[in-house]
């Protein structure tokens, strides 16, 4: 079974062809402003490297596009925000804890209306349908194309949100509606934040998926395609288009999953050296370890499950201070092929240091032969020390760990580091992101109310069903792992009722991680 993995990063668009567990080819092309031409270019390169790329059974695309849109405050829709909560929750208006510039970019039109649920499932007060209809008309008259609906305790009972959605769609034809119960958990402000983020990316999500579709068509590739999700699984593209927020963390997740796939190492540190930053994460049983509690995206509090990362301003394009061994955080970024000394430019970058030290072989080596050896050594020492510090931060025990070096700047990682038992360099480490996308997994999820059984039985039943669904979806039974297990008691229902949510993921059947790491 052949698959293509694509990673659309800020600097490069990488593409790989995987045939079962083997990387047939991996290529890089510059990311373009329209995204599409970069994807087309990378696919053309891939076809040149491996003509069989035309005949694949699936294409997995990972992108940091949506996160970047939020971080850069562009391509965001105006959002009608409806909170079903009155008479509670009135003093803190929607988006109250957002950064001012992001709030200004979203220009929310907010409405608080009566309704919502108590913790035990009763109504706080009945839903004020008239107020929803009135809000809908104002949203329509303002020409707003996206609506975010959040009701108090909707993860427990979603009928208020669904009814409000019905009314909105009746009044505002063609509007894109996100309901909070689809994207978030208990925690009103954080769930509402995620709902609004998803809503404001509505059009961008649809257009991006359409651009991907066109790119595949232009490249002559006809296969089902998927977007990779925060948790390392995939979602069918048309569904994923409706939920851009689920792709927010797919970049780092893909790079770490790719590192695990290529190296066969399940527990260890991954260091991904890109153009501007180095991201250091920790693999536990082949999965990125997650950050605790609240995660901020573009300055907005969310309850997303994100990989726990330390980011250092060290990348191939990082500027080197003339006088001393200071690296970054400024970077020439995507201008590296013009700006670096080895490419005939006039800016001293980390790549030049790498070439001068004989770690990297790009550009013209003679253009950096004049560099002072003591400067080169001092820079490398400073990089090593900062990386060692970061690795130490991520470790959970004093024992030495294996470190997997990936990303375009992987050769810059020193071979010998304190606290590291072995630095593993990989043949296709430069495109680990795309490999991670191509090797993304299948998930099975159950979200149901269990009653009349005890907690252990309720959880076990749900897990069994989730496993079954993952296997039906094509997952390898022996690789299934629980990534999410949660239960919330529902006091108003008889019989020790609880809402149980279980999510399992597994490798696609017939796949095994490659075990012989190239060093």
């Amino acid at each position, binding site marked *: 079974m052949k698959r293509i993995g694509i990673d659309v990063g800020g600097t490069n668009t990488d593409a790989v062809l995987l045939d079962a567990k083997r990387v047939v080819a991996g290529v890089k092309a510059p990311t373009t402003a329209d995204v599409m031409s970069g994807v087309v270019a990378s696919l053309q390169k891939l076809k040149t490297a491996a003509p069989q790329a035309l005949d694949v059974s699936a294409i997995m695309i990972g992108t940091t596009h949506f996160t970047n849109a939020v971080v850069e405050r562009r391509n965001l829709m105006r959002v009608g925000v409806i909170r079903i909560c009155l008479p509670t929750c009135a003093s803190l208006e929607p988006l109250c804890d957002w950064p001012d510039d992001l709030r200004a970019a979203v220009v929310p039109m907010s409405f608080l209306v009566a309704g919502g649920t108590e*913790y035990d499932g009763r109504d706080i007060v009945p839903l004020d349908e008239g107020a929803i209809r009135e809000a809908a008309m104002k949203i329509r008259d303002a020409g707003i194309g996206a609506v975010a609906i959040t009701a108090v305790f909707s993860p427990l009972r979603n009928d208020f949100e669904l009814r409000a959605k019905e009314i909105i769609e009746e009044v505002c034809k063609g509007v894109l509606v996100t309901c909070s119960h689809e994207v978030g958990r208990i925690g009103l402000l954080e769930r509402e934040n995620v709902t609004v983020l998803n809503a404001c990316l509505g059009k961008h999500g649809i257009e991006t998926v359409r651009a991907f579709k066109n790119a595949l068509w232009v490249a002559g590739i006809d296969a089902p395609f998927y977007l990779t999700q925060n948790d390392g699984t995939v979602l069918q593209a048309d569904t994923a288009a409706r939920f851009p927020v689920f792709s927010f963390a797919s970049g780092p997740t893909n790079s770490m999953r790719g590192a695990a796939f290529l190296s066969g190492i399940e527990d260890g540190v991954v260091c991904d050296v890109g153009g501007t930053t180095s991201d250091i994460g920790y693999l536990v049983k082949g999965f990125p370890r*997650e950050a605790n509690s609240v995660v901020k995206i573009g300055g907005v509090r969310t309850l997303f499950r994100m990989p*726990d990362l330390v980011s250092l301003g060290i990348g191939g394009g990082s500027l080197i201070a003339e006088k001393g061994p200071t690296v970054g955080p400024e970077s020439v970024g995507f201008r590296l092929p013009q700006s670096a000394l080895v490419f005939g430019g006039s800016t001293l970058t980390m790549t030049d240091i790498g070439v001068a030290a004989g770690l990297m072989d790009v550009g013209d080596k003679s253009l950096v032969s004049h560099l002072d050896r003591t400067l080169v050594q001092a820079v490398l020492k400073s990089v090593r020390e900062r990386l060692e510090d970061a690795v130490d931060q991520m470790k959970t025990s004093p024992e030495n760990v294996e470190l997997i070096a990936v990303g375009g700047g992987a050769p810059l990682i020193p071979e010998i580091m304190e606290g590291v038992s072995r630095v593993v360099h990989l043949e296709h480490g430069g495109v680990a992101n795309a490999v991670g996308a191509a090797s993304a997994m299948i998930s099975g999820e159950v979200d149901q109310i269990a009653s009349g059984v005890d907690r252990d039985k309720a959880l076990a039943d749900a897990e069994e069903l989730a496993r079954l669904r993952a296997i039906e979806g094509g997952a390898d039974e022996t690789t299934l792992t629980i990534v999410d297990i949660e239960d919330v*008691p529902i006091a108003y229902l008889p019989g020790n009722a609880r809402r149980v949510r279980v999510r399992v993921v597994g490798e696609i059947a017939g796949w095994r991680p490659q075990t012989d790491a190239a060093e």
Partner: protein
Amino acid sequence: MRQFLESEIEPLAIGAWVLGTGGGGSPYHGFLNLKKLYREGRTVKLIAPEELADDANVAVVSSMGAPMVGLERLTDPEILVQAVQMMEEYRGVKFDAIMSVEIGGGNAIQPFLAAALMGLPVVDADAMGRAFPEAQMTSFAIADLPMFPLTLADVRDNAVVVARAASWKWMERISRKVCVEVGSVASTCKAPRTGREVKDFGIHGTVTQAVAIGNAVQQAQREHRDPVQAILEQEDGKLVFVGRVWDVERRTTEGFLRGKTLIDGLGDYRDQQILINFQNEYTLVSRNGEPLVTTPDLICVLDTVSGEAIGTETLRYGQRVTVIAMRAAPILTTPKGLEHVGPRAFGHDVNFKSVFQS
């Protein structure tokens, strides 16, 4: 009396969450509300208990309920003001100052919200020195001060006065029933205290203590030092365990969040597990059935990296946590105090032995 600065709001929220010992509800919403009030030009003065006149009228306020409910049903400051004003009307007095019943968690900030709206100072004291789930678990109850009246306000214009109660326990039972009925969250004004009572039986300096903990955490974060270590140093606390959350079992019953969590050891604690029981707050840490730390010693579960407190309602599988213990206020560990807040008050059949007396 001094001005409480806007720059102290965030440290207060961070420190209060640590003192919440897992409960008391996250102070985040209160923090947002207070920031908003300061931005609108309202400010609050902090008054030391010693500065109160003996006959001063002090309102004791709290938001009552289950922490998980507070994550969804956000409470407006105006509702708390209603409870305080209801008490003023019922008793026919005007309050001179306002204080929190509980410095741990969201209730640390509640008096500031009412104070900002009413133009009253906040007393640098509380009645727990931490968080506890029930009304009789206060220094005022331990001192056998009168427990009534109590006023309770709900968002739907339901207002309740508990005019008399036979005991602190009865006050808890009656007000809890009402609280559960209105959705397990309500704003309350407890039995008013005189300045003399606050001086004699309040737990003093706890607002300042919370701000100091918050400052220590923030400073450590800024300087990339270990924030957990900073808290231990600031409070002369004790490291109990380092690990990750392995399992969490919760149930919301009778208005409380009850349950237990299993923590699997990491690093020096590898191959060990501890069990922590909770009733809104962490009440008991045990290993192999042997108690390690018991209430009223403060049991705090902190994010190992950021040092921020993790509440019983936000505990989650896989979180890396450090468990520390801090000293309880002396009145809580007296024989009378232990009747109210010792392990047996939470249904644990063990004796209290402070981790600090060995």
